[in-house]
């Protein structure tokens, strides 16, 4: 859908940002109309890069006056095409807003602008606040902290503390009308970012909405203690049906800070195994030994020969497992083709064995190797099960197979009663079909109220 009145819109945008940070050149339109996923390109009209909340406000007001869609973007690494415009418009690349505004050591939070990358926050905390850490997703370090929170992502502290959405203390948002809103404790003062508080929880109006309710400009996220010692133990088994019980026992000890389950067909020795990595952190070697001893007891006492326990993972494997962020990106080169995409399914843990076995069928049906990464969330209340499908960007058959497998897996996860995580547009429609009608109506009414002109990432969370 070509933008009407293009010249005056372009002039208006360059008035706000200067020419350097507004583009309608074919090169930028090409790159921003594609992401690393297998999704088809979707035309972009303009790309802008604001550097302040005032600039974001001015862009929103201009777009609203002209009825032009706005698509907020972090690093576009969601792998679901969520920053590709469904109805054309202006992609708002937030990454010039990359200041770490404040870290409160005492109240354990960081207030950051929406374009701050995971990498920047990791290195900043390491250097200035080595006693603190934030929950790091397995995404590349160029992904934004905001992107992960807004899609309710998961990281290495999610086993203990929940999703990244739950770690948000508060947000500053430019609403689709250009007004500014603050949520959480910041509702009372622009300098209060310590918690979500007990006021009406407006933060949820922007979490999981996929950029359809406003542009987040700042966020306060929780930080957690970072004990100096971090280590891991590994459990291996060849029977997916016992995984929920093993995980239940591990989480019941309350000593593991992160529990992940991995399954893949390459390298060959991993085929057929479920590998559970339980991470432990401690302040002293004595504390570490004690925690590990709890974890060791599990396999011995209850599962005997069915589960083998490795107190020390072999060198290279351990190095890979301990890296933060975990180098999940490596899957992108499995087909020597620069691509992979995954279905994330949020499910109760007892669904895992069925999800595991049926996923293998799907992968093999589409000529692929299965590859799973599963994270146990919030003490074991549920798991995030990800099915990864690598593909070769230069091979249409491979792309087609990946897309077909993704669709089948979406269907499978809905059938299993799972919630598809950060779903792409077709997945959103499938979810809406299953959703309680009244709830969906309320979602629409909220959107209409916040965004009367319908300019925020239109096409998402819609029926047609």
């Amino acid at each position, binding site marked *: 859908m070509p933008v009407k009145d293009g010249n005056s819109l372009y002039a208006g945008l360059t008035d706000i940002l200067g020419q*350097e*940070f507004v*583009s309608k*050149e*074919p*090169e*930028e339109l*090409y*790159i*921003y109309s*594609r*992401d*690393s996923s297998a999704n088809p390109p979707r035309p972009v009209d303009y*790309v802008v*890069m604001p550097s302040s909340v005032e600039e974001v406000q001015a862009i929103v007001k201009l777009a609203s006056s002209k009825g032009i869609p706005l698509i907020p973007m972090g*690093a*576009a*690494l969601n792998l679901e095409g969520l920053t590709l415009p469904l109805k054309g418009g202006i992609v708002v*690349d937030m*990454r*010039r807003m990359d200041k770490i505004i404040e870290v409160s050591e005492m109240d354990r939070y960081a207030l950051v602008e929406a374009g701050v*990358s*995971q*990498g*920047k926050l*990791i*290195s*900043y905390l*390491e*250097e200035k606040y080595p006693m603190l850490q934030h929950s790091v997703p397995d995404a*590349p*370090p*160029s992904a934004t902290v905001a992107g992960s929170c807004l899609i309710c992502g998961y990281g290495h502290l999610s086993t203990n503390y929940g999703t990244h959405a739950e770690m948000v203390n508060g947000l500053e948002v430019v609403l689709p009308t250009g007004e500014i809103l603050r949520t959480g404790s910041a509702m009372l003062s622009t300098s209060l970012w310590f918690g979500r508080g007990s006021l009406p929880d407006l933060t949820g109006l922007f979490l999981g909405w996929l950029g359809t309710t406003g542009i987040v400009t700042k966020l306060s996220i929780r930080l957690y203690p970072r004990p100096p010692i971090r280590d891991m133990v590994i459990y291996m088994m060849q029977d997916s049906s016992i995984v929920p019980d093993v995980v239940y026992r591990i989480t019941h000890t309350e000593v593991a800070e992160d529990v992940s389950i991995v399954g893949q067909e390459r390298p060959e020795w991993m085929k057929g195994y479920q590998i559970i990595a339980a991470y432990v952190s401690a302040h002293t070697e004595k504390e570490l030994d004690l925690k590990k001893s709890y974890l060791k007891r599990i396999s011995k006492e209850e599962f005997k020969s069915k589960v083998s326990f490795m107190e020390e993972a072999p060198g290279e494997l351990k190095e890979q497992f301990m890296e933060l962020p975990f*180098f999940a*990106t*490596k899957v*992108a*080169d499995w087909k*020597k*083709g*620069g*691509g*992979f995409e995954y279905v994330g399914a949020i499910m109760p843990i007892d669904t895992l064995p069925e999800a595991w076995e049926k996923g293998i069928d799907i992968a093999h049906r589409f000529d692929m190797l299965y590859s799973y990464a599963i994270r146990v969330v919030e003490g074991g209340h549920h798991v995030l099960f990800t099915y990864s499908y690598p593909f*070769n*960007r*230069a091979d249409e058959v491979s792309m087609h197979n990946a897309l077909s497998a993704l669709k089948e897996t979406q269907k499978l996860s809905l059938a299993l009663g799972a919630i598809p995580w950060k779903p792409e547009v077709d997945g959103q429609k499938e979810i809406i079909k299953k959703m309680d009608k009244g709830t969906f109506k309320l979602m629409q009414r909220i959107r209409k109220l916040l965004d009367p002109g319908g300019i925020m990432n239109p096409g998402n969370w819609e029926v047609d």
Partner: protein
Amino acid sequence: MALDDFKDVIHRCFRCGYCKFTSNYTDFNCPPYNKFRLETFSPGGRMWLIRAMMLKDIEPSQHLADILYSCTMCANCVEECRFKFHDDIVDIIMEGKASLVESGMVPPTARDFFKNIYLSGNPWKEPQQKRGDWARHYGIPVYKPGDEYLYYVGCIGSYDQRVQKMAGAFGQLLLRAGLSFGILGEDEYCDGNEVLMMGEQGLFEYLAQKNIELFKERRVNKIVTLSPHAYNVMRNKYPRLGGDFEVVHYTELLKELISSGRLKVPGGRKIKVTYHDPCFLGRWNSIYDEPREVLESVDGVELVEMRRNRENAFCCGGGGGNFYTDIIGGGESSPSRIRVREAADTGADIIAVACPTCMTMIEDGLKGEDLDEKIMCNDISEIVLDAITSAEEG
């Protein structure tokens, strides 16, 4: 090589962005991405655009030329990309530029650069017969067959007044060490590294062959280069064209002369020095220790590291011809200004360089930041020579 040779590789870039960072993610370390911030200016953006050009999804354009020519060929992406094809990234960018050369779509400043080198043998149309004039002042001899080393000075060292002093300092050290060496003077020609990095492969081959023939004619065996750029091309690219010489960078030779005792370095004044790694010495050729060892051999020098150093060093912004084309220069976010701010943070009195391009860029950065009165930019030879002469003067 041609772009087509990379057709099985180019689509393997996932656009994950590891290559934008230092190894510990403290900063964006790709100079043009750091400045322009649009994804197109990142290494992955370039990979995807070059592929799009191969697939004819986009046409060569001036904007595409700016995107590709703003790449300083600093090789941070090669260092940080986590995939096996990482070594190919700069070659792919080079081939992307070569495609633009073929389609006549290079930035006007790059076109002037090529033309001037073709016609005059240097980027500034300076007279060839004046190329060796600087050396007379220092009594540096012309190379004659039988000399141990050919001292290859390069365009910047020959014509830039500030860098002539750097070239002179190294020459004086060689004289003091009693080495037999000489320069080519008015017979010296551009080494071609930047021309190659900018995709003018025909011109590069012409220059390289001309140099190789001349070196052979003069019976050259060993070459010591002032510039890491010349070092890179002569060591890594000339052999393919039949030019197999023993090539060393001047910091390597200095290290050897000092450790063998041929060059005695007495203690100088107390100075705090921070060393800026040149990309073509560091990331391209893994020479990190020798320059530091030379500096540390000077009594009185306290060597302090910048936040980004060695494999993580931030490029001065001059590579890939950018010292001439100036696509990323200007303003507070120009790489050279960022780098001198980082140097200033160390509290150093001197930024030590080991490359003529870096010297001109860092000098500009100091002026831009108004720091030229507070911090000096010196080349390693100048620091060593200063220590020797000030000891002699008592």
